[in-house]
């Protein structure tokens, strides 16, 4: 929002390019995500071009350009999960939640993202929902778990 007052967040950082990543993290912490018009504000503060801000922010999976839901669903795409069929888990989630990766449901209940290895390789494929891990998943299990919740 153009009206969001980022002043206090920004002023904690020096006005130089090196501040860019910590600055983005801090803005995301305070707003939950990075709204498009905030990128310009961050660019001016860190004295970098607007495009650089988006380039950097879209390179790291930790940054989001959409608001997150109350349940943050993270699909692991680490090697073990990938081999175990993470792709199908993700596709199933996209179908069930009716959103694509990186998006949030309209009621703001769920957002969907992918992450690298979450450290439960023995239980692959797995996902985490607000840091709680569900393991040894199949598309069927995923459907059940979320169908219920969605109703």
């Amino acid at each position, binding site marked *: 929002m153009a009206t969001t007052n980022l002043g206090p967040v920004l002023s904690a950082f020096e006005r130089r390019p090196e501040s860019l990543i910590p600055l983005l993290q801090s803005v995301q912490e305070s707003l939950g995500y990075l709204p*498009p018009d905030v*990128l310009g504000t961050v660019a*001016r503060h860190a*004295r*970098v*071009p*607007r*495009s*650089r801000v*988006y*380039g950097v922010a*879209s*390179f*790291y*999976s930790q940054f989001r*350009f959409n608001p997150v839901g109350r349940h943050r669903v993270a699909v692991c795409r680490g090697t073990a999960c990938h081999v175990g069929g993470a792709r199908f888990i993700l596709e199933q989630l996209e179908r069930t939640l009716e959103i694509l990766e990186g998006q949030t449901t309209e009621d703001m209940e769920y957002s969907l993202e992918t992450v690298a290895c979450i450290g439960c390789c023995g239980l692959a494929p797995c996902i985490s929902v607000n840091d709680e891990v569900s393991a040894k998943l199949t598309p069927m299990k995923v459907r059940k778990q979320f169908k219920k919740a969605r109703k």
Partner: protein
Amino acid sequence: MSQKIEVSIDGSTVMVDASATVLEAALEHDLFIPHLCHHPDLEPAGVCRLCLVEVDGCLVTACNTPVTGGAEIRTDTEAVKETRLGAVELLLVNHHHGTVDCEEGDACELNRIARFVGVDETRLDRYRPPDRSLPVDTSNPFFAFDPSICVLCGICVRTCDEIVGVAAIDFVQRGFDTTIGSAPGQQWIDSDCVSCGECVARCPTGALSFTGFETPEREVTTTCTYCGCGCGIHLGVAGDRLVSARGQRENPSNEGRLCVKGRFGFTFVNSPDRLTTPLIRRNGTLEEATWDEALDLVAEKFSASRGDAFAAIASAKLTNEENYLIQKFSRAVMGTNNVDHCARLCHSPSVAGLVQSFGSGAMTSSSKDIGDARCIFAIGTNTTAAHPIIGLQVMRSIRAGGKLIVVNPREIELARYADLYIQNRAGSDVALLMGMMRVIVDEGLHDPEFIEARCENFEAFRDSLGQYDEATVEEKTGVPFAQIAEAARMYAQNSPAAILYAMGITQHTHGTDNVLATSNLALLTGNVGLPSGGLNPLRGQSNVQGACDMGALPNVYPGYQNVAIPEVKAKFEQAWGVELDDVPGLTHLEILRGVTAGPIRAIYLVGENPALSEADATHAREAMEKVDFLVVQDIFLTESAEYADVVLPAASFAEKDGTFTNTERRVQRVRKAIPPVGDSRDDAWITCAIARRMGEEGFDFESAEEVMEEIASLTPSYGGITHDRIEQVGLQWPCPEASHPGTRYLHAETFPRPGGRGRFFPLKYRPPDEEPDAEYPLVLTTERSLYHYHTATMTRRVPGLETLRSEELVEIHPRDAVALAIASGDRVRVTSRRGEVEAHALVTEVSPPGTICMTFHFHEAPTNVLTNAAYDPVAKIPETKVCAVRVERA
């Protein structure tokens, strides 16, 4: 001269530049190494991995590996071939989904490389093609981006960052999804892109491609018709039409680069609106006529208005040869010095001021050398908008660690790159500059040796600094003194420091004082007489420098030779075989005023549009309406032409031969690319035809080249200039004789003044003529848009430019907008003591509180109806930069 070292390439021993990379060394010896992400204008990136070679047995990328003495370089080993083939294949799969021989043909460097390394298309099937398909971005009117052809070499990203400085685009997303973009969900047009097309011109694959261009049958090298940067340009021709443009790399003024106007703005030439036949006013309307009828009428009327009843307004858009002929016509045929041109409205204070202080009113440095300055002090210039290619030099200097100080009432684009940005009150420059100089003198940062050896009148100047104490300076400028002191130190302590200025300095009732203040500053710190320092008035139009040099001014002959000096008069009387007048003529404003309150009965208006460009434009219109006989010679039926009694259709810059002199004093060729449109004629032909019809001699030239010979014979600073000598590269005046190499920077040893010294001037602060009051509480200042030129008769006939900027916008600060209940997009009425204008509002922090800003490009909202015609007593330039207005919702 750089050092050479010996290396072996594929077994043969060669000498190469010690600072070269392996790739550069090979290319220099005509040995092709495939390369995609390398571009000679850019720093090496090493991302495409195609330039693999073996150096002493190790595989390396040639583009970012420096040569070392004795190195053994092999470009053809099996290891090289195999690894490279894999890299090419991978790129091909991501490019056009893996087709070799795509429709781009040889325009696609990857295609050529694929053939060079011998890719077997069937082998590509083993790769999984990318499963995404992104739409082509056609949001920019001049070019398109197709992500499915893009191979992510990054040349566009680096061009925009390293050369243009805008960095509108970057790599976005990651992994397979990586593409070129600017912000989430945004198209190219929504980015900070300034549409220069530099990235498109360098794209090796055709992923970025020009949309409007056609393949030319031939190309003609000429000089851009727009701004004073004077870029070299190759115009592409098919049939009788211009179909493409590209920058001329060998031209020192632009080194191949162009801005949006230069690259895409040529299509006005093909416009159906061009005037193609003479027009004569009969019973109140302009009707088509033959050249014979028109010329007879003009000759008859002009013959009846000889002497001071006649005035000519020449043009900074005409060639030197044409300006020369117009002033010669006025003086020798019409017997009057009443000849002036639009420089009166832009840089007359530079000419008047710098002649007094330095002895010569031109940019001291070369454009290219500005990039090597350690400090750039940009005051009253929106360089990236009005002089884009010099703007690139500013970027170059910053990239190399130079300091940038920007002083401007508006927070212009350059402010974002500045080490120090000072937002001063419009019209307070003398106070600001003298305040800076006080700090410099007080802190002993001036250059006493330079002052002692090369200047005069220092003591009087120093004494005048006493008036500029902290409190006074802060009050006049509205700037904390600490900032002014910081600017003073930054400028004085980083040498060489170059001052750039433009209309923010000159268009004031104290414009000449402003100019003298800048020359004081340069003298005080010894920043004159060096290549990358100096004082640089950036001249606005393609040939405004030349029009002044050619004496299209009421007080001087070509080469600034004063009409009042008897020897000068005798010289021209002898050359032209007529008697001449030694009384200086009327200036631009005085000519138009002379219609109602003076002797003017006939005006010859060439390539100028006072109906929009003149301050207090309503008066200009009244004068044109009222004058007995108005001849307008132009390429379009301008707002001013509508008042004409006779309209003469002129040829455009692409339809004639001649020369332009750009802002860095470089005299360059203008060449005919296509025949004149319809029955139009070049301006030189027209002026000569009028003179001949009046029975006069001295106007029988066969070519522009012959006119230049006459110019050179009478103008010392052009003495050594001939069309032959500037066939390849232009020459910078002074160039007094045939063997002189031209002058890269002025005042190296002495100043061309009596005594040879630069002169300091004590200065008194004078406020603008009109200041805000209860009835007109806001200040109106004026600016230019990057996308338009002057009164936009040409640029508004280029559809893409019209898309990029199609209307006047009243820029207003949020604080004032809130107080007036105005939002962006609201229609507002701006009223001054002289008139009112309506346009849409743009609420922006670019304009400071209390100041609004408008351009003067749009006839629907003629800003100059509002501006104040009060003028500088010396240069007679009107105060277009400051007047008092009131704003309300319309």
